[in-house]
């Protein structure tokens, strides 16, 4: 039972992170490898706002979530906008370079010590019983907010005017632009949303455990989850996260804790061999030989 709860929590972490990869990829065909760093930036944002709005945890959380979205907008406006139309490799490398720059800057500003945003917010993190297992309150919040984010994104992409524009830009940028969709606006929105969800994930993970340098690894491990499910499908990201999290938790439990860092990538490699476009990805989208 505890295993099932662990799988659920890990799967929602991966799902919350990987929807950022999916959002950016399906709208602008750019793979953002700076997602782990942006996620960590969101968590540092929470540390910052927590000390700024002392005693008002709700305001602090809302402010840092908003800040994360603004950071995403800035990343697009200042950097990625210049890379539109460049080769795939150049764009990916730009995000990698951005990640390095962010990691270095964060280390400069906040140092290498651990932070505990939850303590700064003066909120408790009790352990709640679920049937025969236990789950911490923040982990529960993480599962719930993942569900909320996915439901919100689904509704937004299905019914929202901007959501429909986003889907149009993803399907065919040229046609969308000729129909009057402002591509730059749509791409910027995708980056803002992705950074917002990533920042949310960063804040929640940091609140549950602690904010330390290893958080970037989680961002990197969530990426196989997005790919296993199919890089352009939100439903796929959910399914992929579940698969990757299950594989990881079971391997850690039954084989060796050291495996945890490779498990997602083994799953990914198996998927790339069998079905490179992922579970729910669009087949013709794939650059396939």
């Amino acid at each position, binding site marked *: 039972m505890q295993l099932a709860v662990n799988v659920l929590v890990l799967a929602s972490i991966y799902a919350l992170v990987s929807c950022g990869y999916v959002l950016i990829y399906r709208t602008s065909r750019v793979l953002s490898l700076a997602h782990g760093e942006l996620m960590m930036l969101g968590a540092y944002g929470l540390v910052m706002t927590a000390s700024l709005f002392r005693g008002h945890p709700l305001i602090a959380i809302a402010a840092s979530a908003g800040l994360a979205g603004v950071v995403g907008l800035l990343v697009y406006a200042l*950097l990625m906008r210049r890379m539109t139309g460049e080769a795939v490799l150049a764009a990916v490398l730009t995000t990698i*370079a951005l990640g390095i*720059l962010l990691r270095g800057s964060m*280390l*400069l500003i906040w140092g290498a010590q651990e932070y505990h945003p939850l303590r700064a917010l003066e909120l408790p993190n009790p352990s709640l019983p679920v049937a025969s297992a236990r789950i911490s309150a923040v982990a529960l919040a993480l599962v719930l907010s993942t569900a909320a984010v996915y439901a919100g994104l689904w509704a937004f992409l299905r019914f929202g005017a901007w959501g429909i524009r986003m889907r149009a830009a993803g399907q065919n940028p040229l046609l969308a632009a000729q129909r009057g969709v402002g591509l730059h606006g749509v791409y910027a929105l995708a980056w803002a949303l992705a950074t917002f969800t990533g920042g949310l994930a960063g804040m929640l993970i940091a609140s549950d455990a602690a904010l330390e340098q290893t958080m970037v690894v989680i961002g990197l491990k969530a990426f196989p989850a997005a790919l296993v499910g199919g890089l352009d499908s939100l439903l796929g990201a959910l399914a992929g996260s579940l698969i990757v999290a299950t594989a990881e938790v079971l391997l850690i439990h039954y084989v060796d804790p050291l495996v945890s860092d*490779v498990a997602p990538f083994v799953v990914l490699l198996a998927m*790339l061999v069998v079905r490179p476009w992922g579970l729910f990805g669009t087949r013709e989208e794939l*650059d396939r*030989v």
Partner: protein
Amino acid sequence: MSVPRASGYFRTSYREDQRLLDTRSQRSWFVVFALAMLGFPLLAGTFALDLANQVLLASIGAVALMLLTGYAGQISLGHAGLMAAGAFTAGILFKELAAPFWATVPASAAVGALLGLAFGLPSLRLRGLYLAVSTLALHFIVIYAGSEYETRRGFSTGVVIDSPIADARAWYYVLLAFAAAAVLVSLNLLRSRTGRAWRAIRARDTVAGALGIGVQGAKLSAFVISSALAALSGCLFAYYRGFVSAEAFSLYLTIQYVAMIIIGGMGSILGALLGSVFVVLFPYAIEAAMKSVGLAEQLSSLLFAVNYAAFGLVMILFLVLEPLGLVGIWRRVQDWLLLWPFRQKPL
């Protein structure tokens, strides 16, 4: 080779067109450069010698990646994994069999070639981003295997290797020989059938296939040759450091090598060399700059972070402002110098 000259130099046969050094000034400059490289350790101090050795080591790896990504157009994010494979082959052979230097070097190149086959297999089905991701996955698997060996055998902090070459000056000549051989092999490959096939595949593999090039074989050969070179550089790295550990081969190392070929300039061996010089010397330049401003004392603990941030920034600047890299700048300078002695205004 085959770069059109402005005037005065005519090529009348394919043999001339294929020559590595085709003008007299190139030949004389090459002699000067070779003498300078050979004479360098006689003048340099220990620190400069160490830097030069690091540059030479990096240049072997950068040339390897340039063959694969810059010429054959196959994006790989598994470079550090391949280097780790070479280093661990050397370490394991040394620890388990007490194998000598002359045996471990070819052995790690062979392991690299085999792994290159494994890294290259996805390239037969995948292209672009997905290929990069599959090599990334393989990187993590190789690193996992290495750290597994470390923990199983009780070398939790790393494997110590005794190097047969103790003197930094001797190391310099060994590394120089290896780097020169790597560059020569690459240049010869590139002006032969294999290199032409690689370039055709990079331009468009469907057309390359239609031209009668065995696309799959050529892709695999690019992976195998590049990986063997990368593993070789990893093996030399292990001997040079006297130490093998999985932590040394993080994803950041891959990024550094990718940065070398980006900053140097894609599709040019000269670019790989310039890029490795730049990337290796960059952190030392930053440190020196901070010292000269007098910030080094306050920021000594943050030096790593400053390096990291500055490196990311430089990479972004090159990607956005100068996608052709240092070689692009060099070519522009050359074009500008053609107008010497500048009597006429350029058009």
